[in-house]
């Protein structure tokens, strides 16, 4: 304890702007240097709070469904995803774009490409692509050299993946289809309103429909993520992945496949705390 007091006294002696005669409490901490905290809503703080993966995923095309026999003879439904002509086109960095991401391109399409896009493909020395998507990664180590070809053996059989794709559009749908409402009775005086929603709220108070009320509207054609699907089979040479279960969207639609975020992902802040 005495040494601590001594230190504090000596440290106060070298403070600028204080005369040597001035009395300073021995327990006073004169100066602590600390980093300014990031504003909570800043993009960098948001990035650090976000759950991220170490490496990018893949782009694929849903080709249909089939069945897969496991070793013990159990039969499981499987979705076939094709991986073909998949190359790295651009890397986004923290310095330039504010986050790390790998931009991938799928397929081959020369028709209707703009001059600026052709230049973008030329910079990576790859052929013009049909479909571009980017995958955010945690750090610089996740970035890949431009022009790298990614194949189906990026994933291993038995691991879990998430699949992001656009669901089938159903158009303007009523409440029974969109929200599984029961509709109105078939008889007892119901007239021309059998599939109606019924009441949408109260009377004079609050005299309005509350926000978020489930009503008829556009159904489907929106991004949907299916988490933790098991990879059943992988063939890099023939270019396909078999995934257990079904995937949103019609046959021929583009899907994004990534390592299961809930299993393999982590926050940057979390990593700092655990000291990874």
């Amino acid at each position, binding site marked *: 304890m005495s040494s601590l007091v001594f230190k504090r006294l000596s440290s106060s002696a070298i403070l600028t702007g204080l005369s040597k005669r001035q009395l300073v409490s021995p327990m006073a901490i004169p100066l602590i240097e600390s980093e300014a905290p990031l504003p909570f809503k800043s993009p960098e703080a948001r990035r650090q709070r976000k759950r991220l993966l170490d490496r990018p995923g893949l782009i694929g095309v849903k080709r*249909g469904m*089939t*069945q897969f*026999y496991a070793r013990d*003879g159990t039969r499981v439904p499987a979705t076939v995803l094709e991986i073909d*002509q998949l*190359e790295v086109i651009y890397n986004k960095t923290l310095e330039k774009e504010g986050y790390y991401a790998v931009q991938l391109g799928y397929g081959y399409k020369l028709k209707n490409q703009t001059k600026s896009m052709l230049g973008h*493909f030329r910079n990576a020395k790859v*052929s013009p692509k049909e479909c571009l998507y980017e995958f955010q990664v945690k750090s610089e180590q996740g970035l890949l050299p431009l022009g790298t070809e990614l194949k189906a053996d990026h994933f291993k059989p038995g691991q879990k993946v998430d699949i992001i794709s656009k669901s089938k559009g159903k158009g303007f749908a009523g409440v029974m289809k969109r929200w599984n409402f029961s509709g109105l009775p078939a008889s007892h005086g119901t007239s021309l309103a059998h599939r109606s929603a019924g009441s949408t709220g109260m009377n004079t108070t609050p005299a309005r429909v509350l926000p978020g009320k489930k009503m008829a509207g556009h159904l489907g054609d929106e991004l949907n993520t299916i988490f933790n699907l098991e990879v059943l089979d992988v063939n890099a040479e*023939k270019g396909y992945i078999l995934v257990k279960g079904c995937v949103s969207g019609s046959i021929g639609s583009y899907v994004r496949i990534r390592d299961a975020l809930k299993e393999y992902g982590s926050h940057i802040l979390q990593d700092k705390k655990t000291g990874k």
Partner: protein
Amino acid sequence: MVVYEPLPKLRDGKPLMAYIRQAQYKKLDPTGEKLKMIERSNPERLRAGDVVSVFYKNQKPVIGAILMVKRSGVASAILLRNKVAGLGVEVNVPIFNPNVMRIDILRRPDTYRSRNRHYYIRNSRLDVKEVKL
């Protein structure tokens, strides 16, 4: 503007689903026996009304009359019906399952019933009789 060539085509440009179908048959049915058993062009094919016994790799054989034959690629299956102590018992057998070793036809009816799926015989006077080895 420089435009780079695409990568070489996979599977010589063969559609993926066609390739997978072929590869699955090659893996699950190398001799082609199982596929021939349900092909409509084969006069000796399995039909609803036949009495068959199914031999497995890891369990006892199953006997019964075929109620229906479901043709759907490697998910093709036959539905067997039998009576055990007067109680109707049905077993669905996916014929391309690697555990199914072989399917023997015990006897065929003299005349086949109309319809390909005999669901209507359940619990009627037309129902299957008890079959034993």
